[in-house]
């Protein structure tokens, strides 16, 4: 027992006191086998997961190493249950492997006959195998590599994958570091991804995930398919790649609703891949249209269900997932890990902020008192109507006015969920509005005017939640949202986090109706950011 910074709990969480002198060393060692779950201001929470322990084994660390790290930094004795589970879990890794047979077929291999039989007799796994080959191998169906890995992971016998990745058609790509340099954390993320083969990189909004993607491409030097959330984002990717790499306009294609180009580097939207015609996915051929050596999934937390299925068939290709908020309200984070790969790199938002790579932000929750007649409407309303009533309260408009006055001259986004409310606000304040109904060209013009400063205020719907680069926006006023969505909250704050030219901090306001479900949802929405160390100051609307 030491007076270290770490408390290991019997539920396999480890709490790290960040102000402790040994905290930085402990964090470094912990990151090898534990997942960072929460990083508020004083205590960071790590979780020792099976996946984390198996990743550590894959990287060459054994259970003695893990226990030594915990003992070294633990404040109290490490609970016996945790010790036993670490030893047991790590001993399961590597007993099974996926290898290539002499004639190139995929084999599930193990020298431990009992483990091999246990795995092969599982109904779901048996369906993916094509019979045994000697006493130590089973042949895996050519298309089932991903599913086999996924099922083995669920069974608790993770397979080491030695079958390798398809190299893809070579294509020269290099970073063009002229007037800029890849940041340390970005190159570390690329390095960790490449070492691991496939996986997810988690970085805050505005911290340069595109550069990580470009960095990975410069290492892979192969044909690359990039999947993004929408056309605006696809164009931003293209422009960024042209600026940051040796790639030229001719080498990059867009595959979206409006353009269908397949080039060595192709940027496609999730929407086009999931578009159906006569009951079939019409553009599925894209996945095999070129000999891709790398597939990048932007905003991987938004991966639609059909893409999950398609991704299971792409296990022979390297896959990189990029996201700021690996939280899914449908709880499918696990599927992202098993199909794209485990989390390879993660950096707390506040760490990146401390390094000056994202703008500091102050968050505020402004509580508005509803007039009695509105409260009465709310009191007698059905449950399903209550959120809309509270979120769209007219009383919020005066608060928006006050906030705009307080931040006069600063580029401000007013973000909401309900179109009626957005138009009401836009009309009352006489500002432009962008919703899903706004044509792409008009959207781009308005965004451009905002970037250039000719438009100081913009009312936007959820179309601006993700992947929209508005570097100078420094104030956001959130007036309604998708109920308690934590990732939406974080992504909306993310619109403000590009460092400002004049170094000013960002301000993120959420206006909520007091004593309503609006307030309850706001609490849930704030959880992710609070876990990243952002604190919300609570203000009364009348005191603004």
């Amino acid at each position, binding site marked *: 027992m030491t007076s270290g910074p770490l408390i290991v709990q019997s*539920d396999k969480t480890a709490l790290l006191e960040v102000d402790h002198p040994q905290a930085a060393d402990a964090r470094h060692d912990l990151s090898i086998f534990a997942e960072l779950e929460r990083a508020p201001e004083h205590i960071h929470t790590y979780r020792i997961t099976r996946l984390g322990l198996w990743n550590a084994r894959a990287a060459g660390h054994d259970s003695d190493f893990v226990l030594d790290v915990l003992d070294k930094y633990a404040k*109290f004795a490490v609970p016996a249950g945790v010790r036993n589970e670490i030893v047991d879990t790590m001993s399961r890794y590597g007993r099974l492997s996926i290898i290539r047979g002499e004639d190139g077929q995929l084999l599930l291999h193990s020298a431990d006959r009992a483990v091999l039989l246990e795995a092969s007799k599982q109904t779901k796994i048996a369906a993916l195998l094509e019979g045994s080959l000697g006493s130590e191998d089973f042949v895996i169906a050519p298309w089932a590599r991903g599913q086999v890995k996924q099922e083995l992971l669920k069974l608790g016998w993770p397979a080491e994958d030695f079958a390798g990745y398809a190299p893809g058609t070579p294509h020269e790509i290099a970073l063009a570091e002229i007037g800029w340099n890849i940041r340390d954390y970005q190159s570390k993320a690329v390095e960790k991804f490449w070492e691991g083969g496939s996986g997810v990189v988690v970085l805050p909004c505005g911290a340069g995930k595109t550069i990580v993607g470009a960095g990975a491409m410069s290492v892979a030097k192969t044909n690359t398919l990039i999947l993004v959330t929408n056309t605006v984002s696809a164009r931003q990717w293209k422009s960024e790649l042209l600026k940051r790499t040796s790639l030229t306009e001719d080498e990059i294609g867009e595959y979206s609703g409006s353009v269908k180009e397949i080039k060595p580097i192709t940027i496609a939207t999730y929407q086009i891949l999931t578009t159906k015609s006569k009951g079939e996915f019409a553009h599925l051929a894209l996945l095999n249209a070129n000999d891709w050596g790398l597939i990048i999934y932007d905003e991987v937390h938004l991966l639609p269900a059909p893409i999950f299925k398609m991704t299971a068939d792409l296990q022979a290709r390297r896959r990189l997932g990029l996201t700021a908020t690996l939280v899914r309200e449908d709880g499918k984070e696990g599927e992202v890990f098993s199909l794209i790969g485990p989390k390879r790199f993660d950096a707390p938002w506040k760490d990146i902020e401390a390094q000056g790579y994202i703008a500091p932000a102050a968050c505020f929750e402004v509580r508005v008192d509803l007039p009695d007649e509105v409260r009465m409407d709310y009191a007698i309303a059905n449950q399903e109507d209550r959120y809309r009533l509270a979120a769209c309260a007219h009383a919020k408009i005066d608060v928006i006015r006050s906030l705009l006055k307080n931040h006069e001259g600063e580029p401000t986004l007013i973000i909401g969920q309900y179109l009626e409310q957005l138009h009401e606000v836009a009309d009352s304040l006489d500002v432009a509005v962008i919703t899903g109904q706004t044509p792409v060209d008009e959207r781009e013009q308005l965004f451009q005017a905002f970037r250039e400063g000719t438009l100081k205020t913009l009312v936007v719907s959820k179309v601006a939640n993700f992947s929209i680069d508005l570097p100078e926006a420094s104030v956001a006023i959130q007036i309604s949202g998708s109920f308690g969505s934590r990732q939406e909250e974080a992504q909306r704050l993310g619109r403000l986090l590009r460092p400002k030219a004049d170094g000013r901090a960002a301000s993120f306001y959420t206006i909520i109706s007091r004593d309503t479900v609006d307030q309850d949802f706001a609490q849930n929405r704030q959880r992710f950011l609070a876990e990243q160390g952002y604190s919300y100051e609570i203000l009364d609307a009348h005191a603004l």
Partner: protein
Amino acid sequence: MSELRQLVDALRKLSDDDLRSLVATRLIPLNNIEDFYSLAEALNSPKSYTSVIGSLSRAQLNSLHALSKGEKIKKPEFESLQALQLVYEDAGKQAAYEPLLDQLKQHKAFTRSISIIQEDASRFDQNEIDRNCGLAAFETMQALTELIFDLEKHLIREVGKGGVGLADVKRLASALGKPNDYAKAIFAMANQLGLMTLSNGRHLLTAEAIDWLGFDQLTRMNVLFKSFTDLLGAGLAKEILALEPGSSLKTWLETQFPLAENTATSKIGLILRNANHFGLTFENQVSSWFGLAVSKGKNFESTLGKHLPAVQSRIILQADLSIIAPGPLPTKIESQLRRFANTETIGLASTYRLSALSVCHGLETGMTSDEIAEILSSAFGAKLPQPVEYLLSEVNSRFERLVIREATNSEHRSVIESNDNVLLTEIGNDPRLRPFSLTRPSNERLICRFEPSVVYFGLRECGYLVIRKDADGSVISPIEASETAVAAGVLNKWDERIAKLREADQSSNQAGNDEVMTRQVQLAIRNKAKLTITVNRADGTQQVIELEPSGIANGRLRGLDRKAQVERTLPLTTIAAISLA
């Protein structure tokens, strides 16, 4: 004399200490025991004998074997069985209770040949065993404390016979970061320790639970160890001292108790489980302080104390309203903190969270928002984060806005009052509260047919900052409410329970009590025992008859008089006295 009667007489003669020891070693919960008859019935049940058989030593089993064959056994051996109320002496003849022998006969032999694989103690690291024992003891104390606060803040209903609902088990398991089975074991342990009890289908705190909150870690450990030695019984507690640190308690018990079944409900199972939970053993390997703790040695505190996590007096307060205790807190701070903060996880480091409801709970217990702020800032050692200050101030300004009182009108039992007409409308319209059938007699009031405590917990579950007030307008503290429940109907302290038992027994002996008479008859029917009945005859004389009762209905008792070879039907009004034969 019937065996049941023998047993009742034997129980009456026991001292309070012996009675206490008996019910602890025979695992009889006193909560539902009304008098010595029902205690005797519980002790004489096959279920009770099944559980005690496993805890009988080889020598005791040999003695019972001899008794079953009509042989006489030596006095010390007889007394060791008599202390457990397994044998009796009737007119100088030694005998074992029949239901016990019936249970024993179900085993192929009273003694069985078993080979025990002795575990090699040397391969265990004693320091590691002690370290893990310390952690287990700490976790158990934390879990019991959490359960007490959970009972204070939630209405926990009885599910099944004395059980707890899955939702309540899950809530506790989630707070402890443990599986549901662990939480269930903690509920069972709290019952066994007398920290909770049942009343009107609800689990309630006992006076012992309130005492527990005031104890420091070592005093709490003493409570656990006392319960453990009670469970062992005096004889076993003495023999078990032979165990060396590092040796296996399980192996030792298996050697000593050939019929032991290590099942969840068996006594041996309970001994093993409690030893592991109470930090006396780790995975059945004996700790350094095992002997000291069982023999109530004075120095176990210093040995054990070294292996309990060191107490910290500092907390960490974060802007997301979470509070982290980076280690066990001093009892006083912990108790204060839990008055106004919800528990998120309990462990070596515990996480709490402030909410409007939790702060309101603190105010209801008599704290002020300034006191809460002072406790937080002095333990945190810095200025409170703004959201915390805002929350305290907001809850303070709304305290007493929504009040529940007991109704004076007999048609309904609770009145919900507020000056906020819209708030009452919202409550009245809340679909989650529909089962309460709230009605609105005036703008400032809602009425309900359920008792105030039920409505109070119902509203709190839905997030309303409601408080209870008594007829004088004083706020009822949730702690006082628990204590009142204890005083009103549930006796908890051992001494009080035993006194109550003796009192009930005396009143049951008084003649002319129809209820008592009916109970005696039902008891005799259930146990196939004979009754000695004194009947008033028409000529004014009395006749004593012995009857095997077969039923009681419509004011008449029916039964077989074997002596006269007739079936008798006696009007209850003619019976002057009745007792088990």
